[in-house]
Every structure is written in C-alpha cells, then in structure tokens.
C-alpha cells in the first residue's frame, strides 16, 4: 500500500467507527425509551423464547467463524478462508431465521406487536437489529464475492477487516440487547 492509500484506508476505518456510533445512538434511544416506559408501570414482561437463545449462540459462532476466516486469509490459506466466509454468511441467514421463529413463538403466547408496549418494544427493537444484520449480510456477500472469487490479493485483508468490525459490532449489539431484555429495571 502506498502512503496515500494508507491515509485513505485510515479515513475509511474511522468513518466506519462513526457509522457504528450512530447505530449505537439509535439503540441507546430505543433502549432508554424502553427503560423510561417500563418505569411508568403497566408493563408486560416478556420471557425470551428458546429460539432467541439459539439465535444468540448462532450469531456468536458466526463472529468466531469470521474471525478465523480473517486469520486464514492473512496467512494466505485462501480455500479455508473461502469456506469460513461463506459459513459466516449462512450463519447470518440462520440467525435471522431463528429471530423470525422467536417472534412467532412470542406471538403464540398471546403477546402481539399491538398489545402492551412491553411486548411491542421487544418486537420493534429486535426487528431494527435484524435490519442491521441484513445490511451486514448484503455487505458481507459483496466482500465475500470480491475476495473469494477473484484471485488472492493480500490487500483484501483490509476490506475484510472493515467487514469484520461491522459484523462483530452487530453481534455484540445483539448480545447487549438479549441481556438487556432479561433485566427487570423496576
């Protein structure tokens, strides 16, 4: 990489962090609204369905597979990288599927999106999170196609690194939300 490219690359990484900060602010707003509303009483506490536990395990494992995808790309093992990056992609789809099944399971217990805000918040916040995972999947598929179909290029590691940062971020975001949803603040 040339000096100018490095400067540009640093700027892109910094821009990504700013983008993550805006996403963090969005969820700060939503979760603070959740706490404030819970404090006002008349709150229906939703027990997390077991599908959400499975999806949590899936998204954590997808972060792990992506981490190893990155390390294998760095060590030049392109076939292992190819396998792991597409595995991550599949795990991402699996996560969304289990979130969907989780919503169905909550609905089966009689808690619908238009009922008590205690239920509505769970639906809306987890849906907004899934939208961010979907965005991640779109970006991931672009990065995966570019880096695994074209011939090996050590500079790709930089794009993979940016993608990894986003992917781990939405992973941690879900872990935070999942724990958050199980706390009775009042």
């Amino acid at each position: 990489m040339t000096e100018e490219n490095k400067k540009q690359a640093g700027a892109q990484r910094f821009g990504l962090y700013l983008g993550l900060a805006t996403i963090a602010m969005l969820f700060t707003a939503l979760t603070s609204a959740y706490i404030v509303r819970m404090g006002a009483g008349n709150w229906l506490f939703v027990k997390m369905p077991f599908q959400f536990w499975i999806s949590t395990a899936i998204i954590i494992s997808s972060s792990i597979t992506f981490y190893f995808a990155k390390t294998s790309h760095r060590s030049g093992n392109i076939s292992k990288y190819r396998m792991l990056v597409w595995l991550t992609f599949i795990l991402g789809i699996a996560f969304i599927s289990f979130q969907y099944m989780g919503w169905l399971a909550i609905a089966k217990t009689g808690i619908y999106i238009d009922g008590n805000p205690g239920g509505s918040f769970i639906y809306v916040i987890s849906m907004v999170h899934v939208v961010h995972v979907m965005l991640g999947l779109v970006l991931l598929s672009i990065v995966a196609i570019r880096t695994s179909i074209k011939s090996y290029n050590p500079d790709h590691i930089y794009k993979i690194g940016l993608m990894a940062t986003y992917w781990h971020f939405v992973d941690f975001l879900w872990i935070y939300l999942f724990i958050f949803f199980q706390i009775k603040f009042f």
Partner: protein
Amino acid sequence: MSTKDLHHGHSEQHAGAAITDHVHYQDTEGVIRFEADHGHHDSDRNKKNFIHTYIFSTDHKMIGKQFLITGIIWAIIGGGLSNIFRMQLGFPDVPLHFIGTIFGDKWAPGGKMTPDFYNMLITMHGTILVFFVLTAGLSGTFANLLIPLQIGARDMASPVLNMLSYWFFFLAGAVMFTSFFLPSGAAGVSWVFYPPLSAIRSAAVGSETGADFWLISMALFIVSSLLGGLNYITTILNLRTKGMSMSKLPLTIWALLITAILGLLSFPVLLGAAILLIFDRSMGTSFYLDKIYISGIGAMPHEGGNPILYQHLFWFLGHPEVYIVILPAFGIVSEVLAVNSRKPIFGYRAMILSMLAIAALAFFVWAHHMFVTGLNPFVGSVFVFLTLLIAIPSAIKVFNWITTIWRANIRYTPAMMFSVGFVSLFISGGLTGIFLGNSSIDIQLHDTYFIVAHFHIVMGVAAFFGMFAGVYHWFPKMYGRFMNRTIGFIHFWVTFVGSYCIFWPMHYQGMAGVPRRYYSHGAFESFNKFGALSEFITIAAIVVFLAQLLFVFNFLYSMYRGKKVTELNPWKSNTIEWTTPIHPGHGNWDGPLPEVHRGPYDYGKDGEDFIPQTVPMRPGETTHHG
C-alpha cells in the same frame, strides 16, 4: 503519485486529467461556464459526460452547489408558504384564489383557506426551513464546498457517500413535495409532530397519508444527514494537508466539525422516535398512545403508551438541531468578520472552546422545551440552570465578534453586512432566550408569539444571515464571478430592517398571550386589538420575501453575467481555498497540495495586511492567537 500527493490512487488519473483540462478551459473564458465546462470536459475528464459532471457528480464543489441550489428552491417554497398563512393572520378577508388553483378547491372554498390547510402550511413551513434549508442547505452547502478546500484535500474521504448524501436529501425533498398534492394534503400536525395527533390517522385531516409521507421523507433526510456528517468528520480529522494542525484550522471548519458531531449523535435518536411513531401509526402499537376517545369515531384500541416519551426523544434531537442550524453560521460569520475587518479574530481558542461548550450543553437542555408537560419542578430547575449556562459561551462569542470589528478598518461588502447583521440578530434573539429558559416565565410565554419571535430571530433569520454571508463571500470560489454589490446591499437592508419589523412586534403579541399556531384569533376579544399589528407583520413578511427574490435574481444573474474574478485571492484572505485556481477542477490544486505554516487569522500582523497560511513562519516569529 509522489508529486501529485493524491489521496485516492484510483482517481489519480482523472483528477489529473481534470486539472490539465481545466487550464485549457480558463483560456476560453467568456463562454457561459455551464456549456464551456461541458464541452471541454467531455472527452478529457475520464469520459465524464454532462450527467457525471452536473448530476451524479462526486466532486465536493459540485455537490455543495447542488445542496445550495436545492436549498434555495426549498427556501422559496418554505418562505412562500409563510406568506400565504401570514395573509390568513393579517388579512383573513382577502380571497386567495390561487390556493384553489394550485392545491385544489377544497382547501380554499371561495378563496378562503380552511383551518386544515392553515395547519398544513405551518407544518410544512417549519419542516422545510428547519431541515431542508437551514440544515441541508446551510451545512450541506458549506461543509461540502469548504472542508476540502480549507483543509487542503483533493476531495472528501468518500466522494461516493457524499454524492449519496445529496441524493438521499433530494429524495426526501421529492417525497415531501409530493405530499402537498395528496387527496388528504400534506402533514398538518406541526413540525414537531407530537403524538397523539400525529400517531392516529383519524385524528385530523393533517394526520392522514401526508403524515406517512412526512415520516418517510424524514427517514430519508436522516440517512442523508448521517452520510454527510460521517464524511465531514472523517475528512476533517484524517485528510488535512501537511502542517494543517487542528489549531490552524479556520473557524468555519471547526464549526462544521462540531455541527457534524452534533448531527451524528442526535439524528439517530430522531430516527428511533420516528420508528416507534411509524409502528404506532401503522401496526397498532401503543408506544405513544394511551386510552383515547375520538368524538364521532369512538374509543381507540390503544393502551399503555405515553405521548411525553416522544417529546423527550424528539427534543433530544430537537435542541442539538438548533445548534446544527446556527453553528455553521457561527463559523462563516467569524471568518467573514475577520477577513473584512483586516484583523485577527479575537480569541481564536475561546471561539473554539465556546463552540465545544455549546455543543456539549446542547445534549443536556432538551427538557426546557417541555416545562409545561407536567415535568417535576425540581427536574425543571436543573434544566433551567443548564440552559442558562449556555448564555456564557454565547456571550463569549458575541464579545469576540464585536471586539474583532472594534476599531477595525472595515471593508464593507454584502458578506460583511450580513455578518454584522447576524451578530445583531443573535444578540436580540439570544436575550429573549434567557426569558424563555426560566421555567417560571416560560409557563406564561409557552406557545405564544413570544417564542415564535425568539426562535425566528435567533436561529431562523440569524442562520439565514450566516448563509447569505457565506454565499456572497464564497460565490467567487463557486462560480468564478462576483455577485452584484448594489443588489447585495439592497437585499441586506430590506432583509435586516424587514426581519425586525416582522418579529419585533411578535414579542408584544406573545407577552399579551396571543397563542401561536391558531388559525384565527378573531374569537378572542382580548386579541382583537392586535389586528393592525398583524397586518403590519404580514406586509413586512411579504416585503422581506420579495427581497429574497432579488437575491435569487442576483445569484442567477451573477452566475452567468457577474463581474469576473481576475485574481486568485479577491478578498485578500489567508485561508488556502484562495490558492486554488479561479475555476478549480476535481482535485482542487493543479500541483501538489499546499503546505500550511501558520494560523488562518494573521491579519495586520507586523505591519503586513495579511499573511496567507502557506507563507512559512519567519525566524523568531511567534504565533498570533492565544
């Protein structure tokens, strides 16, 4: 590569091509720029055609112009709407048949506008001017135009995201514009969009489909602001040229940086509020809605929500938003005052610190918009204290502006006049902020014309003055021509005197308790005495609006026929945007990027009128500002 010092390798070729091509173009001056540019750049600019150069451009200067011209169009629409509703307030008996012609007869049967149409007008006026003009039009224009030019960069960190930022803004505007012509009209629940009015479709005519369009438009607008802000911050922090340390940045850049940080932290919260509102409207949730009975319709199925929750989320954005509007004006005015006073800005560091203080406090004062919501009086007193703290950095800024022009050898240009006018307006409007920041007085003045007068002066007209100062000052950089001075002065005086004529009387109306947002005050005996005053305000508003058309004429005329810029640095300014060619190509500097050695405000130093930032420090010379 090494000689060009370009930031992005892939654009190196066409940036270079644009530069050579541009030199060629300068020789052929005299042709209208639009066409000349088109013809010559066509083949050279890496096969860039008209669409790539003027429509889907990734050149920050072109994107800045796009923001400016779109902002001007929206300002004409938004300002025009205010004249229509001022007619209702000042001259309710004059028939306005054109409303029926444009929007449909049901809005104005017999030329008399309906209350629903009035609500639509005030809602759209507020939304358009706050978001489309004073947010996108002001910081969008000057952040795009000035950041790369004043920090010494070829372009933004991500030119593509920058282009997307404009097009999301354009889409947001298109959606908002379409909503005027819906069968149920545009949103009519005021720009703050409080539930329950905004959350229940059947609540009012203005709560129907128009409100959905408003929410979609705002979501697009938020995306645009976030993409833009992200780019501005990244560019300022990462792509400064050699020697351009943070303590050598012009105050415009500092102001735009802080504006972008505020936007980045507050707009996602508005998005959160809007998402919950969309679910309440469309999915039957009850985030903001409790048991409500609508006469003629019956009980609503909602239960357990809280409309005040929306107000908290909204004003957590809403208050920083007023600083998003005013901070770019702070920066522009500081720069223009220093350049035209031929003196260093007084207290460069104090200016930066006070802007940072204002930005930090902006996040802790939102509840001063909510003193009458049943807020706990103790919480209210905390917000009063934090609100009044803002007076300190604001006063520092005003003091520094006045000291900058104090005993200066002032060069009177339209930009300078608008900057001085800005300081006047900021003082007048800021003082009434101290009244309103006190909860005990606010309870009397809340939702009266006093608050209308306050925020129109301090953030509406003042921010416009900052924008005008910026346009008059940097027009030569944008189009290579000057704007007409005489028309500029007429524009200034009519706008300045006229704005005070509009808003000063409103203070008296407000103190007498005249409520804002009312379609007609005729039903209240105690407000009838203000009839003549309302007429006066309406006439002043129309005169000021016409003066803005003068500005638009000047802008368009000067773009093609204005006096040409013949020297690189027509204002004898220190900042480095004036070291670029008169018509900079994509890439800004022909040769290597300039190197910066000193701060931007070395005016009148050691007997020299001005010392540009690119001049190295002389042996033994010390920096000016402390």
